[in-house]
């Protein structure tokens, strides 16, 4: 399996939306996909039409530890979801304690799931430095860094890159980093500038924009993903493009339906 960690320095840049929509694209192209919600907000499941009353997850009960497979649930489009679970403060503290005892907890638990070799696991990780980020980075084969095209994201790039460098670069199974600039509105000078600067400094092949598009939020409010809600929208095209670039990095081939030349 290939583990893709979706991380960010700042909150609210749209990691969960990116994780959910990429999961859908990969699934549409015939891959086995598991979307893991590693964020106590437990919001990833909402993108897949999972019942609001479904509160089970990897951290929602101590008994679950060692049995993450029991918490897997199928969401819309047949994507498998591993929710974080609705948790009490005690449950969260217990979970943090378990992570502290075992720095490779996430990776080991994912291995126990026995996923096929070509499975793609997307790990939605809370923003900023935290034990969750450490676990996620330690397990990642590929890191997707989500940003906005603004000064706040740019000013944190160096810090978040340093964390990725420390926890990932020395591992032979690490395939690289990819930067997603979310909600990009190029009609404004600042956003266009930051996007261009990041492309220049990080390499255009490592940067993929998701343009600002109301369809994304509408899709979420509908309880689905943008690829199904508005397949011709700019955001849908952007997610497909990002999935193509990411698949090249992790060395998988996507199906004909997402072939680049058709754009």
């Amino acid at each position: 399996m290939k583990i893709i960690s979706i991380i960010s320095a700042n909150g609210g840049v749209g990691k969960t939306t990116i994780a959910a929509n990429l999961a859908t694209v990969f699934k549409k192209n015939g891959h086995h996909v598991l979307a893991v919600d590693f964020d106590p907000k437990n919001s990833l499941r909402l993108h897949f039409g999972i019942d609001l009353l479904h509160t089970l997850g990897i951290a929602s009960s101590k008994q679950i530890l060692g049995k993450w497979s029991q918490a897997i649930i199928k969401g819309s489009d047949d994507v498998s979801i591993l929710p974080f679970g609705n948790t009490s403060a005690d449950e969260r503290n217990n979970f943090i304690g378990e992570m502290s005892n075992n720095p490779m907890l996430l990776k080991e638990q994912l291995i126990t799931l026995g996923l096929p070799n070509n499975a793609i696991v997307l790990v939605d990780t809370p923003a900023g430095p935290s034990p969750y980020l450490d676990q996620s980075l330690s397990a990642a084969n590929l890191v997707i860094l989500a940003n906005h095209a603004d000064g706040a994201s740019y000013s944190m790039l160096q810090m978040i890159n340093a964390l990725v460098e420390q926890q990932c670069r020395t591992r032979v199974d690490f395939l690289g980093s990819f930067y997603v600039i979310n909600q990009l509105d190029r009609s404004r000078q600042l956003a266009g500038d930051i996007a261009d600067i990041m492309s220049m400094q990080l390499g255009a092949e490592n940067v993929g924009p998701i343009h600002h598009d109301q369809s994304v939020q509408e899709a979420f409010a509908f309880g689905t993903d943008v690829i199904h809600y508005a397949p011709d929208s700019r955001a849908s095209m952007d997610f497909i493009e990002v999935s193509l670039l990411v698949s090249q990095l992790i060395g998988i081939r996507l199906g004909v339906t997402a072939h680049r030349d058709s754009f």
Partner: protein
Amino acid sequence: MKKPNDVEALFIAIDEDPDKYQEITRDQDAVLAIERWPLIAAINQISPIHNGVAVESIVTDETGMASKKNHGQTTLEIASDNKVKTIVTTSELLVEEKFVGVEQSVSLNISDITIENSLRGLPPQSNVLTIDTSHIASASTEDIGSIFKRLQSQ
């Protein structure tokens, strides 16, 4: 900016990919863009990012003061392709142990940077609307008045 056909032809003539022209102009635009925004320029003065790797790390001590230090600690060689070495001292970064919030412990000490001077020269409205004109044909630079005169005499 609209790519002139003669530039495209030139690139083809020298056996270069004409799309490289766009890359060159984009990179030039990016360099200018850095200078448009004082904070961005300041960040690049301290820690320019090159090929995704910071040239030097910012570290904080216990009081949260950031400085550009070379601790001589673990030097990580970036594996594949001769990227710049990064001296990472994340062991000294203060990290929130409890997941109460995700506040950053790393911060830039900007008092040493001449950002205030830059800010004084900041134009009142920098975040202007940009017009994407690459797909729009250029119009004549003839004076409008003469054009109207001609049309009126038809």
